[in-house]
């Protein structure tokens, strides 16, 4: 079972148990990356709603419908399509409770997929997590593993706010048993990460452990609780690598580091941020690989932070490079078939 089938199973259970849930998606019969049910797989097929290509009106619709007791889930194929609905999210959805003095709420779940690889290029691979986080009244999640996805659905069931989940497509196909996050009693370094970066960092950390280097990986789907968790690990390690999916400039890592500094955390070495450069992503596989955070960026950062363990890191790096030989760099694994 992978995360896609877990999401689908969660949706079926939610829709069958609550008739007020409605699933809105353009291409409702196309399975939305094997994550949504077909009409034949749920008790009430009328809960599935096809959408015209009208992102702004669709977000307005779910905001208005949620005020009166419908519980909408709405899916857009890429994060960028939600930019067309920015006014509805900022002006209406996020402010329903405030503007009505608490008399009305608009809880809905907006699922946005982050593309990457297979030629997604500059307009299909952005995640904009700092943008969504900058809107009071929205809850934002950036799941990596099965428990992150389960957590999103649990939160949605009791939420009185709109929730945005940024789903990296390279997280959909991984097994629900894949272990994400690493915790050691005396870590050398702490890595803050979320979404696909958590899968990458966990893989690197497990490899490093084989060479005697213990690195904590703090997977943070929910940034609102990340600072506290990272803080705990950084107090033990004294060193931090903070990873963003998008640009380091004005990224979540910047906010994290600012808060840790304000809290008086003393670092043994200056924290390092890993993110994309502040420029659009190329569709070209080699250029895209370099653009997005990758394992070699992590090895480089760790070498700088813990030079006394340079030899072990070099060995782990070589082992990683060896394991990647002959593989395409624009897919998360052999299982991934293009184009979508």
């Amino acid at each position, binding site marked *: 079972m992978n995360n896609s089938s877990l999401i689908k199973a969660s949706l079926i259970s939610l829709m069958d148990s609550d008739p*007020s849930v*409605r699933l809105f998606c353009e291409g409702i019969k196309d399975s939305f990356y094997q994550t949504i049910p077909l009409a034949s797989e749920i008790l009430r097929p009328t809960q599935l*709603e096809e959408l*015209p290509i*009208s992102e*702004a*009106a*669709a*977000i*307005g*619709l*779910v*905001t*208005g*419908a*949620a*005020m*009166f*007791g*419908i519980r909408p889930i709405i899916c857009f194929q890429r994060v960028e399509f939600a930019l067309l609905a920015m*006014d*509805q999210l900022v*002006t*209406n959805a996020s402010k329903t409770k405030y*503007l*009505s*003095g608490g*008399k*009305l709420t608009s809880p809905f779940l907006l699922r946005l997929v982050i593309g990457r690889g297979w030629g997604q290029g500059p307009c299909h691979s952005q995640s904009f997590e700092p943008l969504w986080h900058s809107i009071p009244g929205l809850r934002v999640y950036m799941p990596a593993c099965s428990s992150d996805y389960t957590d999103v659905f649990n939160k949605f069931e009791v939420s009185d706010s709109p929730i945005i989940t940024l789903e990296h497509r390279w997280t959909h196909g991984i097994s629900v048993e894949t272990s994400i996050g690493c915790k050691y009693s005396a870590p050398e370094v702490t890595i803050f990460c979320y979404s696909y970066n958590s899968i990458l960092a966990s893989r690197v950390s497990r490899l490093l452990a084989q060479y005697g280097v213990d690195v904590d990986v703090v997977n943070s789907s929910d940034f609102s609780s990340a600072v506290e968790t990272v803080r705990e690990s950084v107090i033990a390690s004294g060193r931090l690598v903070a990873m963003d999916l998008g640009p380091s400039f004005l990224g979540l890592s910047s906010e994290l580091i600012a808060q840790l500094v304000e809290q008086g955390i003393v670092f043994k070495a200056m924290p390092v941020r890993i993110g994309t450069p502040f420029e659009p992503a190329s569709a070209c596989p080699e250029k895209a690989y370099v653009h997005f955070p990758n394992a070699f960026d992590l090895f480089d950062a760790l070498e700088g932070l813990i030079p006394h363990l340079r030899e072990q890191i070099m060995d782990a790096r070589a082992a990683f490079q060896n394991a990647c030989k002959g593989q395409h760099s624009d897919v998360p694994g052999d299982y991934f078939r293009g184009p979508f």
Partner: protein
Amino acid sequence: MSDETAIISYASWLRGVQAAIAECYSRQLMRCPVHLSIGQELLWASIKQYCSYEFKVFSSHRGHLPYLTLDGNLRAYVAELHLHEDGASCGNLGSMHLKSPNTGHISSVPIVGSSIPLAVGAAYAAKHLSESWISVAHFGDGACEEGILHESLNLAAVKKLPILFLCENNRYSCTTSLAARQPSSRMTRFADAATVKSKLASTSNLTDLHSSVGDALSYISSSQSPFFLEVDCYRLIEHCGPSLDKGMGDRTFEEYTNALASDLLSHSLNINSYERGFSECEHLINIYTDINLSRRALGFL
């Protein structure tokens, strides 16, 4: 009292209330941008006669008339304009967000066109929860220049939702005339494009206006389908504030004079209702003027 007499009486009261706001706005103690609808009162006075329907109204920055029509709590209205905690939204939101969710005025949103799809959502909820309310998207000719209207009409039509698209064509967006903004003066053409049934009415013909409103509501209720009602009207004062915007933008003084001369409500005004509206509102404004002067004396207002 006949329907039309009642409409004239209520519209006169609405004008009196707004006239008091306009006159006292220069005190600078209603510290928010106030968008009045002087000249446009007959439409909402007509809708008031149909209050046997349950409405969910989503309006815009120019939302005073739906608020007064559906709620009518003048004290909460005046207090809100003075950003006082007695206000309709506890003095947090001011003139551009007037609303009264308990009486069916769900929202006023001061981003042009932004509240239209919310009304589509309320109509979706009515349909799927078997509720009988009629959802109303209330907007002006300016909102017809926003893409969101097109998306919302299309969505309401394809999902067959019980919603009234209520367009007050007051011919101006701030100080810019309709002719400078659109190639046609008819907003119903947008409904035609989405195959939404529509009608054009005018505040210069009360009998037709009132029956058009009634027909629209009855059509939506019986067919559970969208309807677009365009109401030709004329805003007799400036975009935001109490004055004429002569010398600014596209309007000429001659145009004002002609519009005032042909304003149906001015000719048929119920003086008693007008004066009652004016004095009730002025009395409350005076109370909140004193309160706000005290707030200013304490600092920060």
